[in-house]
């Protein structure tokens, strides 16, 4: 099993969720995060004082998948999340040792 973490632009979330549902992905978890990278932030001005804000709102998607699902999901996320402009984000794949479904106690693939 693998864990996929994708950092995406927030407004792409709905589209990606729908694309993944199309792949029969049953679950995912998302977090509001802030990203720092090549994409430059913005300036805020309060009573004449300027502040440069480097951290940009992003959404982190976390999915646990069977190894078999990984390539397809990676492709789908990459294609759907892409706008072609700087700041589109990253996808990381991490190894997972075990999965448990709390409700049933099932483990492994059947718990995903």
């Amino acid at each position, binding site marked *: 099993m693998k864990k996929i973490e994708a950092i995406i632009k927030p*407004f792409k979330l*709905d589209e990606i969720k729908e694309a993944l549902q199309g792949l029969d992905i049953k679950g995912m978890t998302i977090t509001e995060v802030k990203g720092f990278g090549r994409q430059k932030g*913005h*300036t*805020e*001005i*309060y009573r004449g004082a300027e502040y440069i804000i480097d951290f940009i709102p992003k959404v982190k998607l976390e999915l646990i998948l069977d190894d078999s699902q990984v390539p397809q999901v990676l492709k789908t996320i990459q294609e759907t999340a892409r706008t072609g402009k700087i700041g589109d984000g990253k996808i990381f794949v991490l190894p997972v040792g075990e999965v448990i479904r709390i409700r049933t106690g099932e483990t492994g693939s059947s718990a995903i």
Partner: protein
Amino acid sequence: MNAINTGDTAFILIASALVMFMTPGLALFYGGMVRSKNVLGTIMHSFIILGLVTIEWVLWGYSNAFGPDLGGVIGSLDWFGLSGVGIAPFKDYAGTIPHQAFMIFQMMFAIITPALITGTFAERIKFSTFVVFTLLWCTLVYNPVAHWVWGIGGWLRDLGALDFAGGTVVHINSGIAALAAALVIGKRKGYGHEPFHPHNLPMTIMGAAILWFGWFGFNAGSALGANGLAVSAFVTTHIAAAAATFSWVFTEWMYRGKPTTLGAASGAVAGLVAITPAAGFVGPLSALMIGLAAGVLCYFAIFLKHKLGYDDALDVVGVHGVGGTFGALATGLFASKLINEAGNNGLFFGNPVQLGIQAIAVGVTLVYSFVVTLIILKVLDWTMGLRVEHEDEQAGLDLSQHSEVGYNL
């Protein structure tokens, strides 16, 4: 006699303060309904109008709206810069309070009317263009219409149209201008598939409460003195607001299964809008009926936009346009000389003609305001551009137009 009455003056000054307070109230009412990235931009629309329209009104607005009549159509510029508008009462408008008190009370109406419109183009208008639009609209739409209905010599006033506190001048006028604006500016990006949830409903409800509170000044103050008529208008205002709060919530409860707080706030405003033209002409039970009807009617009126496919972001058309139109016509039904000798009877009190006169005033305002607003906006769209860039809309007006962020909690 020219004596200033302290009770009347106290009342009109406090009423003016209350009506002034409505504009920031409206800012909250609207501000809570947009997405969090547009909260400041939305609030700013109302707030900057306080600055802009005050200056406009002092310089030429009051003179155009209430100054010496030119052919029934507009006031002259004789009172430019408030010249000649002093402390002595101007009897033709209000005999017991200083002329400046009448002027400042009316100013607050001139301020809130364009602020009402801003709900329709929320979340996507360019700030610079908005500033220019506001000044043009006040000059070309608000001032003439105010003159027709309320100015000495205004042609709708002479026709006998009844508008106690601004059903036509304020609500129909802003409501139909909002329709024009929604049509010209187009839908918000993502409208119809992305969710557009209100970001802060307690703020919206607080705004509605301030509007309700301030509306006592708006309607009762329109009696221009602390007299029986003011009391009557105060009572009808409150009853209609309450009745529409109840009926809107009850309607959606039946129709959609849930009574919502946004519905309660919206209903309150709908009731206040509908009673505005009628406030000083009808009795308490008529107010109850007007309020109950307004809540139901405006609830369904906001579905129009889904049907007809325009994006009136915060339902200015549904609430102010439809509610104001209903109120103006209802005045032609429920008005009674028993309540206000200086008014007239409506259809239900034996005078069907009044309904016709009301319909004319409504129709004229609808057409004039719609057409002129459309022209102003089209011209601005070609010249300055009405709408922010695609990416600026996505980033939100707060960042793109003002370089600020609403919350850092």
